[in-house]
């Protein structure tokens, strides 16, 4: 089930937006303050110029400073934003020589100005004013007293300039973000191109084309491509196994059918009822074997291709083992062998599984042992409880198999290198399928007594599952 969880684009856009907005807030705060500083510098210099112009107009007359306020100074103060203007010329005692508004220059301010030119922000009748004061050492014939010049104006020009500068900064920032966004989209197109190429290639493949991929991918996609490749490999193997199985099955069925045909042909040519009877007996036996072969094939096919696990239940493996062993020990086919149980753990051992399949499993193993061992052999079944696993085993004291054959014993139609038995070669293959269905493991090895030992390791029910 494929669940679509947003797009990569929206995810990238989200992160870009988040980082950009966090960064943006910082940048814009900085931009605002630097705009304010820039505006302040620009207009402060006009205050300075106006103060200098007024200073130029101060003269001493009869021991008193007099000033003829130059119009130009006032126009410089007003700026092109038509600010309201303030000016005052104070003598050494703080008396106003000339001035227009009573902004109330405090003695404290005058002291500060006497040491160095000073900038001030002040509120007057609810309006913000920017003031500048400087002291002038002027000399007349009679007196040499310092004179203070104060100028100021309202701040709409500064505010407007701050706003303009800030707006420009914001505009630049927004344009930058937009460009970054567009670049991100382009970059994503480029970055996702290999993905699109791969998708295109996969879509164009034939349904039964299981060859490895031939494409160029960036490092980040190597793992995915390799996974895809290994998926193809498994599919190819599965398909080949299926083809082989079908071919083998046809072959296996063809041999007894050909025998049946030969037997019946010979019988038809003969006039002897005895020959007919003998032929019928052969046909009967052969049909029985063929029927068994067909049923085994059927069950193998069922096991291998039943995808849906049928209902599993909690099973006491000891009881099952007991029951199946006794069932088989009483059959006619096992009369020539000695089938027995090794001592079992006393307590019931629970595993999760399908009872019919487990019975089939044990049955096949016993059947195999019966078929591939000479009469009189001892066949022993048992169980050992490990920490995480329950081990069921079956061993015999028959001739065993060579180590190189051991590895592919579980393949269909493998008879352990023997052609002398009536077995179909499907027994262990069926066992193998059932073991896989139960997520168990099968180990085939030579027994201590020389025969074959098959160990099946089942996982116990976990505590959680037990509840």
């Amino acid at each position, binding site marked *: 089930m494929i669940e679509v969880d947003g797009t990569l684009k929206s995810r990238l856009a989200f992160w870009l937006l988040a980082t950009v907005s966090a960064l943006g807030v910082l940048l814009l705060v900085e931009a605002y303050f630097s705009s304010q500083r820039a505006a302040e510098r620009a207009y402060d210099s006009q205050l300075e110029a106006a103060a200098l112009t007024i200073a130029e107009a101060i003269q001493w*007359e009869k021991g008193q400073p*007099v*000033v*003829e*306020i*130059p*119009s*130009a*100074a*006032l*126009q410089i*103060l*007003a700026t092109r934003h*038509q600010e*309201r*203007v303030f000016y005052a010329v104070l003598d050494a005692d703080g008396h106003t*020589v*000339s001035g*227009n*508004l009573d902004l109330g220059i405090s003695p404290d301010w005058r002291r500060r100005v006497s040491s160095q030119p000073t900038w001030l922000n002040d509120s007057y*009748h609810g*309006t913000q004013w920017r003031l500048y004061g400087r002291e002038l050492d002027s000399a007349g014939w009679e007196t040499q007293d310092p004179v203070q010049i104060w100028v100021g104006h309202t701040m709409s020009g500064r505010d407007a300039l701050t706003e303009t500068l800030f707006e420009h900064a914001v505009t630049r920032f927004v344009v930058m973000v937009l460009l970054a966004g567009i670049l991100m989209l382009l970059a994503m197109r480029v970055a996702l191109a290999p993905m699109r190429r791969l998708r295109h290639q996969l879509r164009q493949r034939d349904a039964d084309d299981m060859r490895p991929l031939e494409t160029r991918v960036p490092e980040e996609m190597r793992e995915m491509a390799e996974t895809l490749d290994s998926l193809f490999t498994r599919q190819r193997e599965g398909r080949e196994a299926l083809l082989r199985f079908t071919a083998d099955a046809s072959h296996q069925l063809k041999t007894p059918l050909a025998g049946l045909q030969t037997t019946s042909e010979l019988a038809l040519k003969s006039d002897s009822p005895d020959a007919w009877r003998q032929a019928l007996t052969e046909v009967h036996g052969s049909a029985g074997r063929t029927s068994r072969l067909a049923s085994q094939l059927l069950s193998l096919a069922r096991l291998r291709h039943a995808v849906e696990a049928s209902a599993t239940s909690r099973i006491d493996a000891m009881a099952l083992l007991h029951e199946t062993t006794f069932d088989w020990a009483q059959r006619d086919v096992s009369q020539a062998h000695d089938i027995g149980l090794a001592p079992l753990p006393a307590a019931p051992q629970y595993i999760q599984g399908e009872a019919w399949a487990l019975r089939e499993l044990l049955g096949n193993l016993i059947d195999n042992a019966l078929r591939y061992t000479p009469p009189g052999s001892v066949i022993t079944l048992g169980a050992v409880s490990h920490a995480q696993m329950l081990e069921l085993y079956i061993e015999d004291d028959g001739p065993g198999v060579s180590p190189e054959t051991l590895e592919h014993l579980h393949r269909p139609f493998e008879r352990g290198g023997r052609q002398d038995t009536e077995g179909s070669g499907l027994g262990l293959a069926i066992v193998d399928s059932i073991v896989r269905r139960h997520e168990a493991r099968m180990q085939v090895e030579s027994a201590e007594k020389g025969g074959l030992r098959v160990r099946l390791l089942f996982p116990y029910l976990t505590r959680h599952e037990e509840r």
Partner: protein
Amino acid sequence: MSIRRVALVWLLGAMAPSLAWADNPLIVEAALDREVAAPLLDAFEAAHPHIQLTFRDRSTLEVDARVADADDPPDVVISSAMPWQMSRVNEGYAQRLDSPAAQAWPEWAKWRDEVFGFTFEPIVMAYRLDLSRHMMPPKTHADMHTLLTQHRETLRDKVTTYSPSRSGVGYSLFQQDARYTTRFWDLVTAMGAADTNLEANTRSMLEGLSEGRYWLGYNLLGSYAMVWAQSHPEVIVQVPQDYSLVMMRMAFIHRDAPHPAAARAFLDFLLGREGQRVIAGETPLFSVRSDVVGPYTAQRLRDQVGERLYPIPLNASLLAFVDPSRRTAFMDRWQREFRRLSQPAPAQGAAITEPRIDKSPKR
């Protein structure tokens, strides 16, 4: 006062909302002759019948004093004393007007969108017909100086102009004259030598001309003089041919206007097409707007007089004129120059020497 207010509230509550508008007073303090402004006021009352207009015609100094009256502030302040108006606006007595008419108003005729120069009145010379029998009437400032010098005895006591100490307008005009040329002081000296009569307003000068007391007037408000000349054929108005100052009457809405809505309506009317059309057609105040047609428009005046019109700039430089020490210095100099020839030096004592050393060499 309080009883009247209670009564008003009761009246407003009792009447229908539409009638409540009928009692919508508007107080305008103006240094503007009611006779001259009458057509404008009538047109406003016709356009806004619900506003009860109270128009108080006062002198510029009275108007200026009324602005600072905290107990009973006016709604609209109009004055021809430009520096004083500017100073009041700079002190923060005006409030902003953001109407479309205010926005469209030319930049050179407004300041801070708070105060608006809504007229365009040339400053003129006026003479009596008697003068032309004795001499060539003056056309320029230089002519004026020449006449005063050459015909001093003929013109003695027959010349009139503003008193800079008693009239704000006169003071501003002389300040502006002095800004353009230092030869202005020669003219002052010449006027002083001819025992020129100093009047407080244009009307007195015009009356003197009509009565025959004066033959020649300098720096009269062209608006008043032109109206006067229409009904007094013995008076001739001359727009100076070298340069002619132009004065603008400045109007603003008071910060504490008790009736701000009516005040805005009034100013919008003054600046709007309708008000300016009346100014151009029915008053000699001259319309500033270039899209208005009539006998009295700034455009028409420019066409007649040429580019020699010098409007007094409506900007912060006006503030310098009201600076007390600058005013004192100017008045000192005025007195000195005015008396130089009529009351020779000894009367002035030692004080006269210093400024002469400073300023005279520049002439």
